[in-house]
């Protein structure tokens, strides 16, 4: 089964790319006639993504959340899960044009990682891992969705001002709807991020004897938490629309840096993540 992982990963990537292409054609050249095909492709890719996670889980005998590859795979899965939930409730299929590139880029990064199965180090053999990493996945998935909506918001806002005839103005939901949904998904992600930080700290206390070490990974997770806290607070002061969208984008950049940048540029005691 271990040998299935790489081919399945490439097939999943291919399906996500195809889904993106079909969504793009659907919104650019046809008038929504290909939407059902695009949806079929993205759901197929999501199922393949799930199968890959199940295979990985069976191979390691637990939830695949122990290293960068497994976390990345779950991260992609969570982004699509949140996209599918939001899309089905609020009719937001055009957001696929911005969610899928994030997913594709992440998978392009993941295909370069070592997929071989290695035993987990003793510190990772803890029940805290499941809550800590699962909540990270949920929050990061929600923030990715909010990021996509914020980018859409800024594009539509710019198009309305500079190119009012552009067809994407009609394709995208209203500015108010995107702003509101971006806020709502952050509201889902933020408590998850808080629980992620808390469970990580409790686990660190049990494992390393210190609940907080100012390790780069935990510091950047805290920076991300601060940015989204600021987002929620400034909304109370009436920051909506463009300013809020920009802050949401900054927040997601911090997420990406915590996930990838810290792992490669600022190594610390989270060496396995």
């Amino acid at each position, binding site marked *: 089964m271990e040998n299935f992982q790489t081919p399945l990963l490439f097939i999943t990537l291919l399906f996500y790319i195809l889904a993106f292409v079909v969504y793009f054609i659907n919104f650019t050249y046809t008038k929504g006639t290909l939407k059902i095909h695009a949806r079929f492709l993205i759901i197929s890719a999501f199922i393949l993504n799930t199968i890959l996670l199940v295979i990985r889980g069976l191979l390691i005998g637990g939830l695949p959340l122990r290293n960068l590859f497994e976390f990345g795979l779950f991260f992609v899965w969570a982004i699509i899960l949140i996209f599918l939930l939001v899309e089905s409730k609020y009719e937001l299929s055009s957001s696929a044009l911005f969610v899928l590139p994030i997913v594709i880029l992440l998978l392009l990064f993941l295909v370069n990682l070592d997929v071989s199965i290695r*035993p*987990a*180090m*003793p*510190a990772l*053999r*803890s029940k*805290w891992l499941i809550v800590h990493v699962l909540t990270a996945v949920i929050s990061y998935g929600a923030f990715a969705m909010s990021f996509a909506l914020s980018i859409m918001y800024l594009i539509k806002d710019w198009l309305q001002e500079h190119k009012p005839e552009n067809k994407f103005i009609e394709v995208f939901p209203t500015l108010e709807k995107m702003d509101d949904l971006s806020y709502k998904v952050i*509201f*889902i992600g*933020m*408590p*998850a991020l*808080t*629980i992620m930080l*808390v*469970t990580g*700290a*409790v*686990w660190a*206390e*049990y*494992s*390393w*004897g*210190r*609940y*907080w070490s*100012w390790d*780069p990974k935990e*510091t*950047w997770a*805290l*920076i991300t938490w*601060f*940015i989204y*806290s*600021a987002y929620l*607070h*400034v909304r*109370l*002061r009436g920051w909506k629309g463009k300013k809020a969208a920009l802050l949401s984008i900054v927040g997601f950049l911090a997420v990406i840096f915590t996930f990838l940048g*810290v792992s490669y540029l*600022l190594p610390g005691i989270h060496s396995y993540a």
Partner: protein
Amino acid sequence: MLNFLSSIKLAVILITTLVLASIFATLYPALNVFGSFWFRLLLLLFCMNLFVCTLRSLPSLFTKIRKEPGGLSKESSSVRIIENIDNLSHYKKSLLHYFKTKRYKIKERSSNGQLNILAQKGFLNLVAPHLLHLALIIVLLGGFISSFSSEGKVKVFVGERADVPPNVASNMVIEVNDFQTLYDTQGAIENWVTDFNLYVNGNKARTGTTRVNNPFKYKGVVFYQKSYGYNHLVEIAGEQEGIYRVPDGKIFKLEDQFFNISYTRAGALVRFFRGHDVVKTQILKKGDKIAFSSDTYLQYLDIHPFTVLGVKKDPGTKIVMSGFLLMSMASMFFWTGRYKEVLISFNDVENKFYFTVSCKNKAVKDGIIEDITKKLEVE
């Protein structure tokens, strides 16, 4: 001053400064930003901001929770008036049933010929931000107390004793009975376990076990499995005759031969070197000998493992953990659905009723209004 100290504006300024300082700190770790006075001052200000903000918001929170149903002002723009209802008492029952099935908390009061009903739901969500602020204050307070904690390490060979660093606990001695590496069914390392006795003032106080992710605690002193290692007990006959304790992996020279001994599950692995290259390997068990020349040999006597335990006494940890528990609870409360409040006044004499719905989520608010008016249509 108090207004500014509790303001969102100050909160945002502080959060932004903390973010910038933290980014700077991770880029230049040598500067020890997190241990600096100004960073601690920032945290103190942040804590004060949270405290004053929480304190000032508590009265309005309690007012909302303990709110009583009262007459509605007809002039208020948010009040909706429904008139000429055929069967007001039946509609009343129907609405009450609706709120009950939706699990609202209902309060009823009659005054001046009017029946006033207050239906509330989502208290947990209402409390969540305040609880989160309170939890953060507790965590920061615990963190401050933690800065007075003491910690250290103690290295002990199996069968031997060592003092716990006196800055952590005075007159405390550890005696290690056993140290084991545990393996899972696939042969991978699962954990490291140290069994030990604890002596206080010369008297045996407790027997304990510590392993990774499962520290041992005794009266506020916590013991963590930090590290481990092996020495090898060997007897050498010949020119350098004697019994030696050889550290694992350290290279030695005997009769012009360079070698080291390392622990493996199969036994002690002896590696002979020429330059950097390994030229010969051999597994030794207890009693095995290696001859270096006709009158020089090495006999492997035993393995001598040691364990390194982290020892800590931190009165702030429990406070921080309670803060964390509250933070988790508050976070989950955010997911329980927005606070909703419906205030209704039935006027039997005028055959009409007034109502107002409060909820920060506009879609939810519109949904409740729609439900109430739909009930009327059905009746």
